[in-house]
């Protein structure tokens, strides 16, 4: 129990003194995960919606594949991205390995299937409700997708937040492709892994508490900004 109290005290101290390293690491965590979230959402929200409304030949296969990809092991994603971005790999010339960009790429790959799958589930229900009306109004495919995304935005927010939760807490992939380099690619999760390994439990715990607070803070901020739980709004 002592470790936890020490951790709390250390966390409190770090936050109160606005520890420069802590701020830098936290901001990088946010920057990487939020960028990954925006890119993944831009791909996954329309994709999930399209899967809900479009009938095509390999639809069922695509959906099962997507659901399977939700459980993609981050370490393996990290390994594959590492191989692709390494000097001898196909994208080696870009020199992206051990940069935040590499970490963003890995996280996008990890969370896109998750967001798309949750989007698909939610949009399927909304589509069942709207189907007859939108067909009757003679809407184009594009108009259908925009309408569903707009009116189902609350469900999509849940999908995106689930993706963000996975991204910000992820350590396996970004450790491999980012390398946990101080002042360059160190983020909260990799720092926690490092401090735990070094036996500095107080600092590790402090970083852990900051991570949890950050995740909760971002969720509340997004909910508040989009006014989802306000009375009378969907």
């Amino acid at each position, binding site marked *: 129990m002592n470790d936890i109290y020490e951790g709390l005290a250390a966390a409190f101290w770090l936050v109160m003194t606005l520890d420069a390293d802590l701020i830098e690491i936290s901001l990088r965590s946010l920057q990487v995960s939020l960028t990954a979230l925006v890119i993944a959402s831009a791909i996954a929200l329309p994709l999930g919606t399209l899967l809900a409304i479009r009938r095509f030949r390999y639809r069922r296969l695509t959906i099962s594949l997507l659901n399977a990809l939700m459980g993609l092991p981050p370490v393996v994603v990290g390994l594959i991205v590492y191989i692709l971005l390494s000097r001898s790999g196909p994208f080696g010339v870009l020199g992206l390995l051990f940069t935040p960009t590499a970490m963003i790429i890995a996280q996008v790959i990890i969370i896109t299937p998750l967001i798309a799958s949750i989007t698909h589930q939610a949009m399927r229900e909304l589509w069942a409700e*709207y189907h007859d*009306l939108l067909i009757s109004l003679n809407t184009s495919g594009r108009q259908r997708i925009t309408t569903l995304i707009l009116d189902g935005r609350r469900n999509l927010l849940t999908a995106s937040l689930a993706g963000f939760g996975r991204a910000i807490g992820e350590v396996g992939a970004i450790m491999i492709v980012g390398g946990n380099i101080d002042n360059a690619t160190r983020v909260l999760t990799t720092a926690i892994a490092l401090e735990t390994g070094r036996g500095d439990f107080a600092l590790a715990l402090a970083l852990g508490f900051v991570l949890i607070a950050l995740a909760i803070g971002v969720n509340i901020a997004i909910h508040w900004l989009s006014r989802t739980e306000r009375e009378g709004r969907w």
Partner: protein
Amino acid sequence: MVTSILPLVLENTSVRRRGKRLIGPVDYALAPEGLTIIIGPNGSGKTTLLRVMHGVERISEGRVRWAVPDEHAQHHQAYVFQTPIMLRRSVGDNLRYPLHLVKTPRAETEAAVSDWLERIDLQDRMKLQATRLSGGEKQRLALARALIRRPQVLFLDEPCANLDGASTRAIEALLSDALAAGTRIVMTTHDLGQARRLASDAVFMLHGKIGASGPAPQFFDAPESAELGAFLRGDIVA
């Protein structure tokens, strides 16, 4: 003057689903004017016939032909469903939606929206979430949303099912206005009183086929078939 999409002609049309024939074969011509009422017992194919005319039901045999090409005809029809489908938006946005789809200029849209809100007596509910309206209000809104693009033909599937007298009267008044403005109306109903009040001609569906059809007074007063006579008397026709 816009070219009329009518008459609509159904030739030997049938719809099958999973080996079961839902309607057909049906031969029918929808005349350019009036209000057609479709009556018949449950499962006789009223809704399917309506959906076939609207072009949202895939037909298995036969043809459905408008006076103009299908893509053109689709733009001049509207359909009101038995259970009103409300978009998860405000009452005003529900009315704006069909106009937005066809890129109507903003000023024109707003004028039409406030005009229709007044007609359906929901002026003070413009900002309210449409899903929170009562049953009668939802149906009025659905009707206004269908009429706002000034369709030439309006299909309604039991628009007054589950509505009380006052709401039914409000809907019927709106339908009479639309009819007077030249809208061709085709609707199904279980309410024989309503059928008599509104119909200029009627169709009796039985077992997926047209059992009888014709202009209104004779259709009801001198039924051409025994089944129709029994149905109109209130007997159970199976």
